[in-house]
């Protein structure tokens, strides 16, 4: 009757096992294929891995809670771009001219506010109209992107501030600023989902919405808050990334939602909601970034990368299903 311990171990540890597999594979394959003398498992390379995981990773944390809540947000890529535009552009506004480098926190705050507001708009629409989040955010994905273009036509929005770049490139205790942001966000979101009433209610809503309603949980505000959080995190991701790069194309962040969802699903969060773990999402983010990095390490071209990543996503799904089947006697529905 009991599922075998091996299965339980595989289920909870699958993503970490996958990461270990990737590390071994790319290290070995790298010996034969890579032109680089440095090994794949080099410390600096791994530090870069964390840093490069940050933009997707920070958003993925938000996506996890939104998906646990039983919703989805397809508009994160556009939110990310619009927040970046606001951050970079606001640093050049004349009213802030007197602030010197103090304009940086102001610009950050404005960007984060933008993301939060965009998230709130999605959340409010989902709450008040009852339209499915998939549709609301699919629309917003187009709409917010339109706003990005309206802001500055088709031109990139740029403002290089070297103080900001130096901060973003800084390393503290060996870890890059971006890595710190990623770790901090992961910790905070883990705490939110596991140790606060809001987090537990979010699980309940995703798990059985009617039960939550019957128990008097106010579903709407919780969803709103989670959409605001993901908006905030999309903006934070933009702040972290664009502080360093200083210029945003209006098309930036396109397809980010796909990467983010892939990472979250790799981490085992259920699309139907109600189940998912922040730590596993972190694993999912690392796994994806490792895959991209590893493939480029062994010299795979774009077509291979696309093919492999697509098939791996499907393979993981298949594996997950295999681990969850109850054996031959299962109901065939």
């Amino acid at each position, binding site marked *: 009757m009991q599922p075998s311990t091996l299965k339980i171990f595989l289920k909870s540890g699958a993503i970490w096992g996958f990461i270990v597999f990737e590390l071994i594979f790319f290290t070995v394959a790298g010996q034969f294929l890579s032109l680089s003398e440095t090994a794949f498992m080099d410390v600096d390379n791994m530090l870069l891995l964390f840093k490069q995981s940050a933009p997707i990773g920070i958003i993925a944390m938000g996506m996890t809670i939104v998906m646990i809540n039983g919703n989805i947000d397809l508009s994160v890529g556009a939110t990310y771009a619009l927040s970046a535009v606001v951050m970079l552009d606001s640093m050049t506004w004349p009213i802030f001219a007197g602030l010197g480098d103090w304009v940086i926190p102001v610009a950050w705050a404005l960007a984060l506010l933008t993301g939060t507001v965009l998230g709130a708009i999605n959340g409010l629409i989902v709450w008040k109209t009852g339209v499915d989040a998939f549709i609301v955010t699919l629309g917003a994905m187009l709409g917010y992107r339109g706003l990005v273009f309206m802001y500055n036509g088709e031109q*990139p929005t740029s403002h290089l501030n070297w103080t900001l770049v130096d901060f973003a490139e800084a390393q503290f205790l060996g870890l890059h600023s971006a890595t710190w942001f990623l770790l901090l966000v992961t910790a905070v979101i883990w705490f939110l989902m596991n140790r606060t009433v809001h987090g537990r209610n979010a699980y309940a809503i995703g798990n059985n919405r009617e039960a939550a309603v019957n128990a008097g949980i106010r579903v709407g505000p919780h969803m709103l808050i989670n959409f605001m959080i993901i908006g905030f995190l999309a903006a934070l991701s933009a702040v972290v990334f664009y502080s360093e*790069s200083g210029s945003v*194309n*209006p*098309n930036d962040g396109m397809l980010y939602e796909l990467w983010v969802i892939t990472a979250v699903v790799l981490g085992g969060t259920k699309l139907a909601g109600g189940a998912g773990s922040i730590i596993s999402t972190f694993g999912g983010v690392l796994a994806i970034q490792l895959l991209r*990095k590893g493939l*480029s390490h062994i010299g795979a071209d774009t077509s291979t990368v696309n093919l492999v990543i697509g098939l791996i996503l499907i393979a993981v799904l298949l594996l997950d299903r295999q681990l969850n089947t109850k054996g031959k006697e299962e109901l065939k529905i």
Partner: protein
Amino acid sequence: ETYKIGITQNNVGVDSYQTTYEQAFVDAANANDRVEAVVLDAGGDVARQIAQMENLIQQGVDAIIIWPTNGEAVIPAVRKAKQADIPVVVTNSNIDEKGFDFISSFSGPDNIAQGATAAEVMCDRFKALGIADEAQIVEITGQPGYTTAIERSDGFTERLPEICPNVELVDSQPGDWNREKAQTVMEAFLTKYDDIDGVYAGDDNMGVGGLNAAMAAGREGITFVGATNFAVGYEAMANGDYWGSIYQSPVDDARAALETAVDILDGVDVPFLNYFETPAITQDNMGEFTKPVF
């Protein structure tokens, strides 16, 4: 001693130019015993390109060639290479001036000059047709946000009024380097404007999309001028449907980039702006050029 040279390209596979470029670059590197190449592709994503720059720096390559996805966003990454004493050559599409301190050289076409040349080709044609005082033209630009698209458009729109002050540019919409998109845009232009005498397209791919739309609508006598002469554009020119373009060879582009990088590593003096030749090609002089392979 061999040089290890890393390249991070913009978006291979999005069109034949970039694909042919990559091929040519790999061939050129293979042909050169002194060069080992690490060939990467950013897939059009700035974040991925910056990550690739970091990876190349971390791997300790001798020089980096970058085809920027965004002329400004890559500047900090280029600065990092500079700080690591790795010379950077920008290829095909330049980075913003703010980053000039950190690069060793730019190798590629002069896109602003190309836009200006296209304006001249268009204007000359109108003069020959005797409609230089009344012609109305539309523009189909490349993917919004790409330096190449912006520079070509700027070069064209600045030069045109200087030589043909009475030609009116009535509309401009992006075709995203995409033939189909350009065709849709052109269809709308054709409905909106009864009188279109000329079309300037950011590349021949889009130009041919526009041409398809015009032929489907039965509108004749439109002067099409493009850039980056593609095989389809060359053929359309041979058929007499398409007027002119700019001849730009991805093979030259790739070779020039590699040579520039090798020269820098050898300590040879290279000009900071290392433009390669991109002459105008029209129905009149196309015999001087071979058909592009892409």
